[in-house]
């Protein structure tokens, strides 16, 4: 190697090292967080309908897409549509609900159905306008006297009650989380209420359409599950107003939608969709079970993005049984597992090797035993799910933490399961699986949430920074083993440590804590001086919070809170929450 080559190599390496080691100051602005993503811009032309082939999509996502993408060496960056508080703004993809607001169990159970009355089984006739005779859940479309159109789907003889229950439970859970969901309710009705309209059509072989005849209705009703009194049970899915445009993709952007500017695989709500899918074992969480609708409101059109069709959730049983056992643990074509099992002669212990049948047969292998949230797999690797980061996971876990047992029970009650044992089993399983998220993720990532500033002592201007520790709330960590260390930095390069404090949770209220600001005797406003503008860099400070869930030397996680200090009278402003992937501690930690 020549001297010149050595010099350039050394220079390049030094620059790289400098890039890596420089402390980058990325200040949040002094402004309210973005809570509304303006993606309702009117569309110029009507977008094209998108057709997604089930087999083409499965083949693509199982093999072709991952293989192709691998050679681009993608970086698993953080989601793009995240505001300063590490939250997701409202948009045509997501609406903040239980994660930000207190919703009663009744509100969650009503979900998208809201205050509107349910489909009345005694208020007929129901005019049948089309049939959906194929698929795992046969059904048909009706126009009801209430003016709405519904898709009625039935349970088959294999696992009766599961599919309709899953459709209702899934729709309400996803609504509560914040996805745009549809109104699904159970309806029990007599077949006499059905009336085929003269122009009703059905799809037959080869996609052909023809007029519907009574035999088409009979074929669906023959396959459907009935109650002992002869009534039929169905999930009634209310049609969403607007023009259907087909599903959305979990990757890329829609070319003909001017509002679609963030790659779908980089949207947090899509990435974190892995978690609710895992919770209810919605193995079919693929693009065909999404729905884009062209909404026409106030004279302008835009696309709203829905999640639909949870009929596969809560333990679908497929033939053969060896396939059903793997659902939730392994993709049907799982290249990783095939390779591992091939090389290890199938001797690796696998979760599907000896799962116990549930005590309630209709829920197949849906249970709590053996459920590991991070390892859950659907029918193929969904591109957005694959890109989820700890921040995305933690965001959804925080939302889950606000779904209480009472909410779960209220949702399950809407499934109207006839046997109390079935209801109890489903409640216990959903609650147990939800708790598995807490056990896994709140012990891996920092579980502090609900940061707020408050003047706790009336008449005094001192502010407290308060927060909840979700790990303690959900019993994942013990208050008597937990402690927090806070250090506040300010200065132009955040080089000055203004103060620090360390404490354990208060025995009287172990799940929440407050710390008085400022830490130390000086505050950033003192550095900025009187008359400094509100967004002066010297008013800026960062509070690092390190969390120890066990009495270890190194913390298990870190969160960084960003503030502007407007002085003793106007106080601190919390402007940003950062949850770094890597924990960094100062040399003197």
């Amino acid at each position, binding site marked *: 190697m020549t001297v010149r080559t050595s010099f350039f190599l050394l220079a390049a390496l030094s620059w790289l090292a400098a890039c890596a080691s420089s402390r980058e100051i990325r200040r949040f*602005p002094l402004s309210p967080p973005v809570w509304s993503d303006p993606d309702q811009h009117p569309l110029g032309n009507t977008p094209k309908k998108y057709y997604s082939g089930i087999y083409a999509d499965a083949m693509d996502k199982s093999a072709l897409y991952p293989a192709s993408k691998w050679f681009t060496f993608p970086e698993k960056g953080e989601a793009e549509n995240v505001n300063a508080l590490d939250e997701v703004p409202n948009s045509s993809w997501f609406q903040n609900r239980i994660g930000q607001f207190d919703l009663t169990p009744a509100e969650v159970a009503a979900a998208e159905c809201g205050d509107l009355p349910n489909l009345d089984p005694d208020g007929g006739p129901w005019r049948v306008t089309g049939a959906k005779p194929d698929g795992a859940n046969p059904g048909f479309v009706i126009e009801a006297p209430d003016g709405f159109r519904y898709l009625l789907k039935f349970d088959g003889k294999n696992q009766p009650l599961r599919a309709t229950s899953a459709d209702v439970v899934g729709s309400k859970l996803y609504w509560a989380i914040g996805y745009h969901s549809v109104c699904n309710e159970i309806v029990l009705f007599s077949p006499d209420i059905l009336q085929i309209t003269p122009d009703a059509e059905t799809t037959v072989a080869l996609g052909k359409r023809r007029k519907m005849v009574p035999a088409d209705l009979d074929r669906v009703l023959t396959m459907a599950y009935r109650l002992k009194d002869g009534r039929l049970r169905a999930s009634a899915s209310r049609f969403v107003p607007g023009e259907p445009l087909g599903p959305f993709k979990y990757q890329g952007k829609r070319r003909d939608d001017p509002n679609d500017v963030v790659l779908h695989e980089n949207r947090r709500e899509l990435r974190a969709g892995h978690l609710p899918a895992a919770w209810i074992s919605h193995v079919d969480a693929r693009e065909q079970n999404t729905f884009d609708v062209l909404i026409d409101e106030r004279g302008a059109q835009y696309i709203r993005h829905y999640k639909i069709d949870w009929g596969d959730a809560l333990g679908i049983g497929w033939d053969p049984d*060896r396939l059903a056992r793997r659902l939730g643990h392994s993709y049907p074509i799982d290249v990783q597992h095939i390779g591992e099992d091939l090389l290890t002669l199938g001797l690796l212990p696998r979760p599907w090797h000896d799962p116990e049948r549930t005590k309630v047969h209709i829920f197949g292998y849906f249970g709590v035993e053996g459920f590991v949230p991070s390892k859950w797999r659907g029918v193929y690797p969904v591109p957005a799910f694959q890109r989820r980061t700890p921040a995305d996971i933690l965001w959804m876990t925080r939302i889950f933490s606000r779904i209480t047992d009472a909410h779960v029970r209220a949702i399950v009650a809407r499934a109207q399961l006839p046997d109390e044992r079935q209801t109890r089993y489903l409640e216990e399983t959903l609650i147990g699986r939800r708790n598995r998220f807490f056990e896994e993720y709140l012990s891996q990532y920092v579980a502090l949430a609900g940061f707020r500033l408050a*003047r706790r002592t009336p008449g005094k201007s001192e502010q407290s920074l308060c927060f909840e520790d979700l790990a303690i709330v959900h019993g994942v960590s013990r208050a008597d083993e937990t402690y927090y260390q806070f250090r506040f930095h300010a200065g132009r390069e955040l080089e000055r440590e203004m103060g620090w404090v360390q404490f354990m949770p208060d025995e009287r209220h172990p799940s929440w804590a407050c710390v008085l600001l400022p830490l130390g005797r000086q505050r950033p406003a003192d550095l900025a001086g009187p008359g400094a503008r509100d967004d002066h860099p010297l008013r800026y400070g960062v509070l690092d919070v390190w969390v120890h869930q066990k009495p270890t030397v190194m913390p298990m996680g870190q969160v960084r809170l960003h503030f502007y200090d407007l002085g003793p009278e106007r106080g601190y402003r919390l402007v940003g929450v950062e949850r770094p992937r890597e924990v960094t501690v100062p040399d003197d930690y």
Partner: protein
Amino acid sequence: MPQDLDQELAGRDHTGTPEKPSAEGEPSQGEDGELEEGQKRKRPDYDGRPEPATDAGDIVRWGPRILFFPVYLVLEYGLRVPIVWTTTRIEQHHLTDKIAAFFTWDDGNARLYPLISFDFGVRANVGLTFKWEEAIPRHDFAATGFVGLDDLYAFEGKVDQKLFRDEGALIRWRGGYRVAPDNVFYGLSDVDARCNGEARGCRFRSMIGDAAVGLVGWEERLNQIFFTTTFRHARFDNERSDAPPITDEEAAALPGFEDGYQVIEPRITFALDTRNEDLDFYTGTGVRLEALSAFAIDVAQPDSRWFRAGAEAGGFYDFGFGQVLAASLYYEGLVNVSSQVDGARLPVPFFELPFLGGNDQMKGFLKRRLMGENALALNVEYRYPIASLLDASIFANVGNTFRDLDDWDVGANYLSYGLALEVGSDRVSSFEAILGWGSSRFDEPSFDPFDQFRLSLGINRGF
């Protein structure tokens, strides 16, 4: 002191806490103004911070990105995009269903579908099968035709007449004719050193016609029984065969080669199996016995006749999760009961001799690699699931054919071994892809464990 933080802070001054989003508020249109056709709105600055600076990882990542960019282009635009586009259009327009419907009649009871057979070392062939269930009440009809390159063809027809309600027991009438120029020949019990020394063995052409009638019992189940009587007309030549052909002298030394033969053979075979038919609960432990007995007589030369008997007995042990270890012992032999002519019994036609090799026994060898009056093989196989419907198996077999069982010696055996992938949908038959090897004979001075290679796709039945 309230346990709940909301209760603790109720009514307090929350100045400094960021505001919450609006409940059920609709997103806005933003301030982009009118957009041009095809123009996208400006991407919002969601968190208000400057973009992170490029770090060392970002830079390092560009190296392999550039290096593998051509690979990405080929995969993405050469494979993925066209395959997905094509498959989507096929689904959207129901092309597969339309093609299937074109070849389907009588409400799906009659259908025509393609078949392919591939075995590296012999000719691949493609064919069509036509099946018509309930062509007439309680009668199924099937016909199959295969062609390969250059003078390889076969066709077969059969009629199954169902006897009982369960439709597993039937009377089968079958007839067919097959011409194959690629039959392998390495000698009979190793007597032909020349062909044995050829890399691909020698080849000869067969023209076999047969007709059979019999009782078939539960062919698709683990326990089976067959009573059949077959008439077989066989002719051979070494002129229109694949290279290298057997020589005229070698052909002359093979009983039945020059003049052919016509044989009638009543046969009984049965299989008894203690395993559970249902795969669902991995009860793959059990034992299996297959046995056959037959008597054959040369119609043109009634003095030429022989008995055939064979059996395979084995056990399966399921480790509990579908991993099954199996071992079996296979024997098939002929007893020549021909009349004596000039002090010697008339020989059994060579093509009727038991053999090893192919999809059933000694899978590392081509079919009929080993031929002789007595065939004996010990098989061990470990089969395990690797995907929902896919099993892998590793197998090893030791065996050979012998003129006389007294000739058996450990050193006189061959080893065959390999790996197979099988569609694991039932125990009786499975579609297999075999990658196998066969060794030279153990007692050869230069023993070669990789003497033969086999790559095959086909159906395996029974063991």
